[in-house]
């Protein structure tokens, strides 16, 4: 971590990741436009820039796989933006594959030191080269320019291409002279861009070099637009600028606008530089200006989450200082120095408040919008729907909902899986949809919203719904539940069976999903995050999965319990209820203690025996059963006393205690004591595990 080159490398990975995400966003937007038969050259150009940056970065860090990929991809995107090849489905497919490839390559480069380029990269490169080599409709390059040669000389190939395209389309050319304040140039440029975008396209930005003050800069914007001059001025609104139409077929600029230019700035690389319409600086400079200004628009910092944890610990240390302050005030008071004591107490209160604010602030920094995951899911939906030949519309709401960074990271796999299921199992084929009177295009909705201290996530499809009876049959067939038990299940219990390992809603497995290993993993992952998942489904109407997640992993609501003089915390997310009982209500079935809870049988486990806790006093007659639930499996944990509910910060046990099962960590209980946090899932797993060998292994420790 401290090695500077490691840190640089880490920065590279996160930057590369960001670039790839931007690229993916651009492609998705392009794809959407393409389906509407439109195309936005700015998007292609942005994609090109992203890949170009990535190429540079990866060669700097010796990331050969990414380097090779971006090198070839850059060529294709360059051809695209210069109009040498048209954008079609095939190319879009290859581009999306390349984005996937980048993701995989990035993971590989990060984890391993292998030098060999994996075959998938080679395959991808081959595909990219194929589309790049495919001859598109020939663009006429021998076109006569309507524009001044001096202007053309400063344009990049891409800008020239855009200029030509716009002229061919019969658009008018304008030159906008705008003065920007250096401090606010980012905002100013963005504003102008937004306005121009509605009525045309900015072809290039060129600094005039004519700055009267040192705090401002003047830019000439070459703009192509469909509008007349007056309409354009009107459209641009009250921005402080000079608009001038560039006449066609002219050899020299309109006399009144000739700018006296210092010689040195009009020197061009080729040295042959005629009188110019616009002041010239090396084009590369203009481009760099442009990119740097774009970059500084985002005012964000990347921070390692461990640093935030560290800050949180410092807050803990400050809490000690606060305690000392309070004690000092008490002492002063007892010594009769009332005034000082009052002052100190006031200080203490102030400190207390600020400290609380600071803690809240740190927690807030950990929050990231769910949009990060949703974007990736958009790509998945596109990919899978193409693979399966289904038309899918993905509707996302609430992507601005914020949640703990650590949760977001762990969320993408489960969500991806559920989306796959929804497309593959949920949404019917187009013919079938038509025959039942649904639109051929299936809809998947991804909704996120905050509800109190929780974030709710819904994945909804308008497909055929889950065949509850089918799931039940499968579960019985696999021996997951007894045939007798099966008779009593309600519909929602039946649906809950999809979270058992091996149970699938489909008979045949395919490439996308349906091997029946999915939903139980999803459930486990969600519970690891302290979340719960529910499923609702109606035949022929659709399925809705609801995930409830805590907003932050840093703080969890827990039930504090006492058993045999030990205090433990159980996260409330895994507790469904707690009930008092006495031994009279217990029966022994098959060597296992069970109790009857509202007509159903609940297996129980005595926590003191399970954890081999020594008792100094006899077991109280009246005890409590805390009902913990994992999927459809429930277990009553027998405890002596319910202490109450408390928000706790879970800290993981050190490596020395890795082998100890049944605890997910420990927490400070407030009286300097540390309480262990019970991992209800692991305990249920252990107690109810069908194989006793497994249970014994889980219990075994060394030493």
């Amino acid at each position, binding site marked *: 971590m401290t090695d500077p080159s490691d840190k640089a490398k880490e920065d590279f990975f996160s930057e590369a990741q960001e670039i790839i995400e931007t690229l993916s966003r651009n492609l998705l937007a392009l794809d959407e436009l393409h389906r509407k038969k439109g195309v936005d050259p700015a998007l292609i150009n942005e994609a090109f820039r992203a890949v170009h940056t990535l190429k540079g970065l990866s060669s700097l860090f010796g990331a050969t796989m990414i380097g090779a990929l971006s090198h070839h991809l850059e060529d294709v995107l360059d051809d695209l933006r210069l109009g040498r090849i048209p954008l079609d489905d095939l190319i879009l497919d290859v581009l999306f594959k390349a984005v996937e490839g980048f993701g995989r390559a990035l993971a590989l480069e990060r984890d391993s030191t292998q030098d060999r380029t994996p075959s998938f990269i080679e395959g991808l490169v081959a595909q990219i080269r194929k589309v790049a080599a495919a001859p598109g409709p020939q663009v006429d390059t021998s076109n006569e320019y309507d524009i001044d040669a001096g202007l053309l000389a400063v344009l990049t190939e891409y800008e020239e291409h855009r200029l030509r395209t716009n002229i061919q389309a019969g658009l008018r050319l304008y030159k906008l002279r705008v003065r920007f304040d250096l401090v606010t140039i980012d905002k100013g440029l963005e504003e102008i861009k937004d306005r121009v975008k509605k009525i045309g396209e900015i072809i290039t930005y060129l600094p005039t070099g004519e700055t009267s003050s040192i705090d401002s800069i003047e830019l000439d914007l070459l703009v192509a637009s469909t509008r007349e001059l007056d309409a354009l001025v009107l459209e641009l609104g009250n921005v402080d600028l000079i608009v001038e139409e560039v006449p066609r077929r002219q050899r020299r600029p309109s006399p009144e606008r000739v700018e006296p230019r210092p010689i040195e700035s009009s020197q061009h690389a080729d040295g042959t530089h005629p009188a110019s319409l616009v002041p010239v600086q090396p084009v590369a400079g203009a481009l760099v200006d442009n990119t740097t200004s774009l970059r500084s628009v985002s005012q964000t910092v990347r921070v390692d989450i461990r640093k935030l944890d560290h800050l*949180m*610990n410092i*807050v*803990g*240390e400050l*809490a*000690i*200082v*606060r*305690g*000392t302050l*309070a*004690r000092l005030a008490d002492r002063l008071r007892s010594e009769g120095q009332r005034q000082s004591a009052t002052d100190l107490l006031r200080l203490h209160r102030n400190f207390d408040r600020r*400290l*609380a604010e600071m*803690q*809240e602030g740190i*927690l807030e920094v950990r929050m990231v919008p769910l949009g990060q995951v949703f974007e990736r899911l958009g790509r998945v939906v596109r990919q899978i729907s193409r693979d399966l030949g289904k038309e899918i519309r993905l509707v996302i709401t609430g992507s601005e909902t914020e949640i703990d960074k650590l949760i977001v990271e762990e969320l993408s796999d489960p969500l991806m899986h559920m989306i796959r299921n929804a497309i593959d199992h949920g949404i019917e084929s187009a013919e079938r949809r038509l025959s039942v009177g649904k639109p051929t295009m299936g809809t998947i909705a991804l909704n996120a919203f905050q509800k109190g201290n929780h974030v709710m996530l819904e994945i909804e499809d308008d497909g055929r719904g889950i065949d509850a009876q089918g799931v039940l049959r499968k579960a019985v067939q696999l021996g997951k539940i007894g045939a007798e038990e099966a008779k009593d299940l309600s519909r929602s219990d039946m649906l809950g069976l999809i979270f058992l390992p091996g149970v699938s809603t489909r008979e045949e497995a395919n490439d996308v999903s349906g091997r029946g290993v999915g939903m139980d993993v999803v459930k486990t992952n969600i519970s690891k995050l302290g979340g719960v998942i529910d499923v609702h489904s109606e035949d022929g109407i659709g399925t809705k999965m609801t995930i409830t997640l805590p907003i932050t992993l840093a*703080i969890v609501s827990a039930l504090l319990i006492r058993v045999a003089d*030990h205090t433990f915390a159980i996260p409330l997310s895994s507790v469904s209820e707690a009930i008092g009982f006495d031994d009279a209500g217990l029966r022994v079935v098959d060597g296992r203690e069970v109790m009857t809870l509202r007509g159903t049988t609940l297996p129980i486990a005595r926590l003191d025996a399970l*954890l*081999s*806790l020594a008792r100094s006093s006899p077991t109280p007659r009246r005890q409590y059963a805390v009902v913990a639930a994992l999927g459809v499996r429930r277990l009553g944990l027998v405890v002596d006393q319910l202490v109450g509910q*408390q*928000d*706790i*910060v879970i*800290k*993981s*046990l*050190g*490596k*020395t*205690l890795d*082998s*100890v*099962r*049944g*605890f997910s*960590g*420990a927490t*400070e*209980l*407030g*009286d*300097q*004591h*540390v*309480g*262990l946090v019970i991992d209800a899932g692991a305990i249920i797993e252990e107690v109810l595990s069908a194989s006793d060998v497994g249970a014994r292994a889980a*219990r075994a*420790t*060394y*030493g």
Partner: protein
Amino acid sequence: MKKFFLHQMWGRGPRVQRMGDIVHIASQRVFRRDSSERESIREFLAVMLAGQTYGVELTRIREILSPPPLTTVPRAPQHVMGVCSVRGQLITVIDLRSRLRLQQAPFTRKTRILLTENAGEIVGLYVDEVRQVLRLTDSEIELATGVFGNDVSEHVIGIGRPPGYVLVLLDLTSIVPR
């Protein structure tokens, strides 16, 4: 959020009053510029375990604490005494006596926890008492592999024999399990 904060108020308890006991040994270290000219010197912290004096290398010790309240961990290996919280950080405390198969005795006023870092994890080591820092020259260290039999000797670097002392020098890396 406020509620949670209250539970972090372990600043009020008696342990913190004793926090003044914490000896930041690093600041007490004496660096000798001319040590290269003489014999090389290693510093050891002399600690008591079941009536015997042991030495642990000073550079490995980050902090010495009066024992905070320990929470025993059910199912943990026998040599783990429990976990405690030191300024917000969760620390596993290992009983050096049990690790060295020595006799156990209850906590006394002299009981201390040494914090040491092992493979990125901070671990607490229980000792009966901390005596002093001893500076040993190479000639005062007797490499004594085999003296205690195979089982213990892997934890022992050697025997230190400064004037007036005999102490068993421990190898913390092998004592603290991975």
